[in-house]
């Protein structure tokens, strides 16, 4: 009696392995083959053996295995240098974190998509009506139902784990070297460099440019003057709402030089479509030069004293001198 115990549990483990390897599918298919007996079906065991000797029950097997092996192998080979799957290359470390997560989700998603798609297509083509006979009226299969409840739970928890780690990285707020208050309004943007006393204001049809240095920790304070706007730079792999009454903070560590497109994403009224801006990433030296060129000169137009005071209060600095600049300033 005691000897029988391990053998049953071993059998159960065997079963579980088979299933977790999605080989249950194969066994289902093998069951279909005219002369395939159940004992033959369970014979291959946990390892999906591509070089199966018995040709008849394995008739459908190579197709599945090839697909699986090709997918898995392709992913392994792609390894560390995955494509971005239609997205921009990230220009910030935060964006890179999100990009990795996106790549993981994309691969997982496509894998699930392919598997379920294959199952549907199999059912659609394999079980089209061939006779008037009434098929077996089975309705429950407890084991399979438990399996396809449990496996998604595991997948979801894994995905959540990666999500949790990534979102903490993306939302982290380390001490910044440079702070910029970004204000959205109908229909333009204002970039106020709080410690540098520089302000750039754009209006519709005249895109303002936010200049930032690479390899520095930049903190953005995001807010709105009127309705809700969306601060979105595709290359940052990031967006955030600019809302009245709420200040959103986030950090950027840029590492790619260049000029990148930005746009309001949250619908904000008539000229929402034209509420664009640019993000220009420059070297720290160029940034210093740009700051000194735009600092504390020029007229104080287009920003009221009240707003200036408010801006100053917000960051605890003395009233800044401001510069207006349009596109390409």
């Amino acid at each position: 009696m005691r000897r029988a115990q391990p053998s049953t549990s071993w059998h159960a483990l065997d079963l579980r392995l088979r299933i977790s390897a999605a080989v249950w599918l194969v066994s289902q298919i093998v069951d279909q083959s005219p002369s395939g007996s159940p004992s033959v079906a369970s014979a291959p065991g946990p390892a999906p053996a591509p070089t199966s000797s018995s040709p008849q029950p394995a008739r459908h097997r190579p197709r599945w295995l090839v697909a699986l092996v090709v997918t898995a192998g392709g992913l392994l080979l792609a390894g560390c240098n995955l494509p971005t799957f239609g997205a921009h290359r990230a220009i910030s470390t935060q964006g890179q974190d999100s990009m990795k997560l996106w790549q993981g989700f994309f691969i997982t998603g496509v894998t699930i998509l392919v598997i379920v798609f294959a199952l549907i297509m199999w059912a659609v083509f394999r079980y089209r009506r061939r006779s008037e006979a009434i098929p077996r009226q089975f309705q429950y299969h407890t084991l399979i139902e438990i399996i396809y409840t449990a496996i998604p739970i595991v997948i979801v928890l894994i995905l959540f784990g990666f999500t949790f780690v990534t979102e903490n990285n993306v939302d982290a707020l380390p001490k910044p070297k440079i702070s910029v208050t970004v204000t959205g309004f109908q229909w333009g943007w204002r970039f106020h460099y709080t410690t540098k006393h520089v302000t750039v204001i754009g209006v519709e049809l005249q895109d303002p440019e936010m200049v930032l240095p690479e390899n520095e920790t930049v903190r953005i304070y995001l807010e709105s003057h009127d309705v809700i706007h969306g601060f979105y730079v595709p290359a940052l792999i990031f967006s955030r709402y600019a809302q009245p009454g709420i200040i959103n903070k986030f950090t950027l560590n840029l590492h790619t030089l260049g000029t990148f497109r930005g746009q309001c994403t949250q619908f904000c009224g008539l000229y929402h479509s034209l509420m664009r801006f640019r993000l220009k990433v420059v070297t720290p030296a160029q940034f210093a030069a740009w700051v000194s060129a735009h600092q504390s000169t020029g007229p104080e137009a287009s920003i009221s004293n009240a707003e200036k005071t408010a801006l100053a209060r917000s960051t605890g600095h003395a009233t800044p001198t401001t510069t207006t600049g349009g596109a390409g300033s």
Partner: protein
Amino acid sequence: MTDVIVPQIVGGEPAYAVHEEHGPTGLMKWITTTDHKVIGLSYMITSIVLFYVAGLLALGIRVQLTTPHGTFISFQQYNELFTMHGSIMMYLFAGPFAFGGLANYIVPLQIGAPDMAFPRLNALSYWLYLGGSIMMLLTFGVAGGAADFGWVAYAPLSTTTYTPGIGADLWIMALVLTGFSAIFTGVNLITTIFYLRAPGMTMFRMPIFTWNMLVTGILILIAFPVLTAALVLLFADRHFGAKIYAVTGCHTVTGAVDVHACGSAVLWQNLFWFFGHPEVYILALPFFGIVTEILPVFSKKPVFGYKGMVFATMSIAALSTGVWAHHMFTTGTVLLPFFSLMSLLIAVPTGIKFFNWIGTMWRGQLVYTTPMLMSIGFLLAFLMGGVTGVMLASPPIDFFVHTTYFVVAHFHQVLFGTAVFAGFAGLYYWYPKMFGRMLNDRLGKLHFWLMFVGFWVTYIPMYVLGLSGMPRRVASYPTGLGWRMWNDVSTVGSFMIAVSFLILLVNLWVSWRYPVPAGDNPWDGHTLEWFTTSPPPHHNYTHLPVIRSERPTWDYNHPDAPNIPIHGDRGGGTHPNGHGPYGNGNGTGSPGHGDGASGAAEEVPAT
């Protein structure tokens, strides 16, 4: 052991089994009726008309986007167009079509009830809905034009400071009216399902369609009052200076917010999405139900994992009330991990449903009629929409693609998959029951294939556009980003869909002009509605079969092929019928019938 087939007259005394139509006829019948079937048809006709209107609006949107600086319509017109397209599709088509229309018509039939529990309330629901719909459409004619703040009406954009027009007020009031309509229908359906089931129709013998409508009704009672309240508050904000969402008049620059003078913009989003996410499932569950009716019938098998299906529906509904803030990840004001986990978890019951649908087809004898093709179209469309939905449940990915065309593609795949593929599957499926005539299957298949191809051609490019950074709700986009080509492809697809719906009109006309009689049970249906005549008599049933599984009509027609209840029980055999008023059905005094050899069986054509 074929003791099952004993048709009986329910209640002995045919109180409601009156054959003659009473009451007025013609137009007066449609206006004064309290018959759930007539009201259901009114709902369906109205919502399909609105579906065509909203589809035309969508074509306007697509035409505008064929060129980078589109000049087909102005920005203002574009904003009105997408607002009304979304509002009509979401509030006036998808929900009312399934919940007011199909459910109203089918649920009482499926549970063997003579009518809804509150017939007059049912009529009131329809008239509120019609009034709200007309009000919504009329906004195109008022000064200032229709509402132009998107179907989500985010405050403070929807306050008078930024949207002063009367079109916005009519939009709000139209939604209040249709909201009450939905609430009343919800109350009505829930009561009907709890109290008017035929003898023998226990809860776990209800068809999945009815189950899903019950759960949808409960979700409506949770979600719609919140929307209605939020809308009333918005109206108060607009006209009585309530300052609930409004942020004008208080300093809104950093650090200078006077909280006492200020409303909260995020409050609207919280209230709206607390309605809005259950609403997504209010729009999805009925259509899941339709598909779960169609797949078994055309696979000639019972639904696989019936009980799992029911509990999956319930867990989707339960989870859906705790995920609203996944629409608000980028507001920076919500607890990301909680809402992310809850949203991801919805994939589990949805996955169960998927595998159950596949299991239903597994080893069946699949017959590819139009409803079946539409249902498989739904499976594929919803599969991809579901997978991208899981991606969106992850906040960092949502930061990336939020309010871009990726989201547009995602929810159109989900909603088109459910409301259109599954919705019109339901129309093709139940049309013979409603009118006693068939829809042409070849035209139906043409409709399906054109729509199916058009669907992918329309929405796959939107994923590409979204990933390359195209925001949604833009009337114009710059050149040089490679967006034009994908937008053009998408527009071509949308016109394919439009043509496919012209074919549906032709099909309806053909069936009207050259009727092909359907008989009572053209599909060899499983559920109770296929037991009565097509169309059903005034109070639905004169006879009922013994109900001892979730598919009494099948049991009646195929006494030799009952459900195999337990996994591994290859011996077959019937479910031990311990409950239900008929007990074992043996020797109850009624004349026993062999295989449809008697009077009652004449109502059930042989397969």
